């Protein structure tokens, strides 16, 4: 991470990564919803073939940051972004870049399962068809469902609606849908918050497999989850000093370091559970 002129560069200065290993260089200066400053001054590199975890209290902007990385926030009319997110040498917020294009390469799994009103097969094949994939759809669908640990449960009812599955199965279906197109980066916004512990464990194992090929950014409320799967952890907090609630990056580093040897007092309080 390069030293920059930003006022809030956290104690994470002790930690540095080779720019070669960064798949997304995210320099978020200000993120607004209307007049509301939601996130400020956060530099969050996403490393190649690693899982980058975002943790922090509610309202610290970690989801906002994640959704800024594939321009999902552009769906919100009052959203405004200052800064840059460089992906393969290109700022995805450049005026010449179509957000649709960004989302083809940077996939997303959401907090709530959101399968489409169509068959299980069509859900998984959706992105393949969207990208006009010429190869064997069946093979890809099976592979995606297998990697989402769902294949054995649904292989005999691929024609059934995706909505006929249970909540945990629906979420794994959404993961299969997201990984079927093999996006370069996968953003996961609390993907396990609607899942029971067994399904959570399966999804975590899946994440560890996914990082062999992709880069993953994961927002989680569950600190144990961060310690279990994240290679790097970014801790965000809320600044209420200006009378507003603005999120910012407090500290980022290797997960072990962030949890065992936090540099900032805020991080220390949060990871030890003293945070109010």
């Amino acid at each position, binding site marked *: 991470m390069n030293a920059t002129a930003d006022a809030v560069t956290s104690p994470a200065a002790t930690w540095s990564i080779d720019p070669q290993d960064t798949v997304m260089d995210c320099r978020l200066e200000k993120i607004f919803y209307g007049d509301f400053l939601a996130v400020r001054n956060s530099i969050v590199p996403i490393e190649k073939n690693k899982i980058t975890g975002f943790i922090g209290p509610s309202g610290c902007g970690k989801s906002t940051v994640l959704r800024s990385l594939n321009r*999902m926030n552009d769906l919100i009319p009052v959203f405004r972004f200052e800064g840059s997110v460089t992906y393969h040498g290109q700022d995805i917020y450049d005026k010449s870049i179509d957000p649709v*294009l960004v*989302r083809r390469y940077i*996939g997303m799994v*959401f907090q709530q399962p959101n399968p489409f*009103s169509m068959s299980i097969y069509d859900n998984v094949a959706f992105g393949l068809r969207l990208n006009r994939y010429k190869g064997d759809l069946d093979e890809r669908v099976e592979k995606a469902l297998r990697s989402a640990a769902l294949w054995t449960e649904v292989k005999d009812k691929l024609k059934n609606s995706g909505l006929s599955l249970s909540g945990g199965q629906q979420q794994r279906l959404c993961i299969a849908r*997201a990984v079927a197109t093999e996006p370069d980066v996968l953003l996961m916004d609390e993907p396990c918050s609607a899942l029971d512990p067994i399904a959570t464990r399966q999804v975590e194992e899946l994440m560890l497999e996914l990082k062999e090929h992709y880069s993953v950014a994961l927002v989680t409320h569950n600190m144990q989850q961060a310690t279990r799967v994240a290679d790097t952890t970014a801790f965000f907090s809320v600044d209420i000093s200006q009378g507003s609630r603005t999120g910012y990056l407090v500290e980022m580093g290797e997960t072990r370091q962030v949890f065992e040897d936090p540099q900032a007092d805020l991080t220390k309080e949060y990871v030890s559970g003293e945070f109010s």
Partner: protein
Amino acid sequence: MASNPFAHVVTKVCGPPSAADYGADKLLRAVVWGAAAVILLLVTYIVFELGRQAFPAMLSFGPEFLYSTTWDVQAKQFGILPEIWGTLYSSLLALLLGGVLGVAIAIFLTQDFLDHRVSNVFRTIVEMLAAIPSVVYGLWGIYVLIPLIRPGANWLHDSLGWFPFFGTSLSGPGMAPAALVLAVMILPTVAAISVDAFKRVPYKVKEAAYGMGTTRWEAILKVMLPSASSGILAALVLGFGRALGETMALAMLIGNSNQISLSLFAPANTLASLLASSFPEAGPIEVQALMYAALALLAITLLVNVFGLWIMKAATRKFEGR
């Protein structure tokens, strides 16, 4: 009211519902059951009364009534095939036009093409179309629409007259103006119910679509439409039902002519329009025949609704797994 086995539990607040609470419960149940019963009785009575009055005609004309084509009061020959044809043809044309337009408007109003406030104003304007009385549509059709489309219609007939849809010239009232006005009349129903159907699609589904990297067109066509399909089908069924039964505007615009023609510009007739225009001067035997025709219209409407429900169920099962 059951006795309370927990009466001895020491508490300052908790206690059984009062007799009045139970009474209100019973009253509510009686009222809703009563309301349901009234509807059932009313429908049964209407069908029974129609059947009773149509019975002599059913005996004397038999099923031939449904597939013969003359309506001659003097000769006491009655057949309603042209009217059945005209009813279905005009309604299908209206459904095609009004359905496509209505769903397109619903997409326009719900898929972020417009600012929220503007789209609400727009929606109110579309719904105001439903408040225009049928007879006004009829007058508008006669004095505005027919003169407006006549040159184009006759040009189509002159240059493409071999094509069955343009087989005759438009001299005045006819299928085309009737179907156009019907389309406008069912448009607000289709649009309003489709808007609700699109609004019921959860935001997270839209998010999922855009998250996959869909363009707006792909999100709407491949995700929003299937998700809203059962509601849109309901809108189309309701619109079709309204078109089948529409009377006044059609009586003014369709030409009341007993013939079966594919031509959009030929005059035709519908069941509702036949009933409205013949009743005032009908003798006893013709009234019986008209009751028979009314029964046929009722049956058609019922069949269309049952068929529509069946399609909706099939769509819900296919897309939503319920």
